[in-house]
């Protein structure tokens, strides 16, 4: 198994391996997203309290989950790059940032749109909303820091340290609704108890969550491959790919 990982870390092998993976992931994403949206927007019953407005959760909740998940991927690959100096880990970490920022932005915007009719306000400075906004700034800061350092190696290390420092925000976001009283609701699914959502709504929610995950991985691979070619353009395999 370790041998496979060593092989995977080699740019050329990764480049070939991921090209096939992207194709299948894209297909899975389309199937999951289509069925998730159909079940969520058409088949699922309205909520007893929020009526049809709750349906925005099928975008909002997966986006919010992804905003934290992508950050962890970014921080862990950053740490791998710091410790083992694996080029590919750095490229993955770098490719995560704009994707994570987009998911965070999407979660904030859909949350705001949901908040207006239900809570009666677009935005409040409660612990959950504020910590999620800080997450967006962390992503933007990560990208800005990287862009501001000319030398790629230095840039990758500085950015990785920033990503590691920001990890502390992830548990704060997750537990903010339990530690403090907030306007935002408590966890519905991500808790040890049985999810407090009816199965007919839970299934489309989980389908959408998986769809977001496979979407993320496929787009991440596309970005990683492009950056690989940019950095390896002098090597023979990259030249061969580029001249195709």
């Amino acid at each position, binding site marked *: 198994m370790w041998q496979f990982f060593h092989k995977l870390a080699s740019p050329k092998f990764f480049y070939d391996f991921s090209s096939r993976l992207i194709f299948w992931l894209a297909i899975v994403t389309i199937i999951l997203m289509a069925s998730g949206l159909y079940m969520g927007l058409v088949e699922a019953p309205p*909520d007893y*309290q929020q009526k049809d407005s709750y349906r925005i959760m099928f975008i909002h909740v997966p986006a919010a989950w992804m905003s934290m998940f992508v950050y962890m991927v970014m921080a862990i690959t950053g740490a791998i790059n710091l410790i083992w100096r694996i080029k590919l880990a750095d490229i993955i970490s770098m490719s995560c940032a704009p994707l994570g920022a987009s998911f965070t932005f999407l979660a904030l915007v859909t949350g705001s749109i949901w908040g207006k009719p*239900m809570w*009666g306000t677009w935005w409040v400075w409660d612990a959950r909303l504020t910590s999620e906004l800080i997450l967006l700034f962390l992503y933007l800061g990560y990208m800005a820091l990287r862009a501001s350092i000319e030398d790629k190696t230095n840039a990758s290390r500085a950015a990785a340290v920033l990503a*590691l420092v920001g990890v502390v925000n992830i548990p704060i976001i997750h537990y903010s609704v339990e530690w403090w*009283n907030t306007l935002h609701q408590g966890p519905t699914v991500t808790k040890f108890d049985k999810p*407090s959502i009816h199965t007919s*709504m839970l299934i489309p929610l989980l389908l959408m969550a998986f769809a977001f995950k496979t979407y993320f991985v496929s787009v991440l691979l596309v970005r990683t491959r492009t950056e690989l070619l940019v950095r390896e353009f002098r090597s023979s395999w990259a030249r061969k790919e580029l001249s195709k």
Partner: protein
Amino acid sequence: MNPKRKKRLIYVVLIVAGVGAAAALMVTAFQQNMMYFITPTEIAAGAVQQGRSIRLGGVVSEGSLRRENDGLTVHFKVTDNANEVPVRYKGILPDLFREGQGIIAIGKVTADNLFVADEVLAKHDENYMPPEVMEALEKSGAKSPHKPEAK
């Protein structure tokens, strides 16, 4: 693992643990400021100054909602099942506002212990289910009945 990598691994662990500890201390120190709202019990305990803008959170007491003749001013009580605070609010209420609903009112406590709200926000809980399931739960007595929107 070679010593160089081991050292770098230790640095990484130290960064995460150090920042984590610092954040934990900060968050505990600011515990009170992190709360988005205060409860009726805290008001009853005299935790707030009169005339200072605060956010009050709790549930609208059953049977406490009363509208004035102008059709805009509402009176209700906010409870946390231990203490109650009477609230006066003039304006449009959010759709989810009803008796038994969790709300957050932003305003000031006046001299006669009345909470005058400038803004009322509705809080919804983490439960999602079809209306029929809620009805069944109410019938079986597992959930207290919720009222349709107060008119």
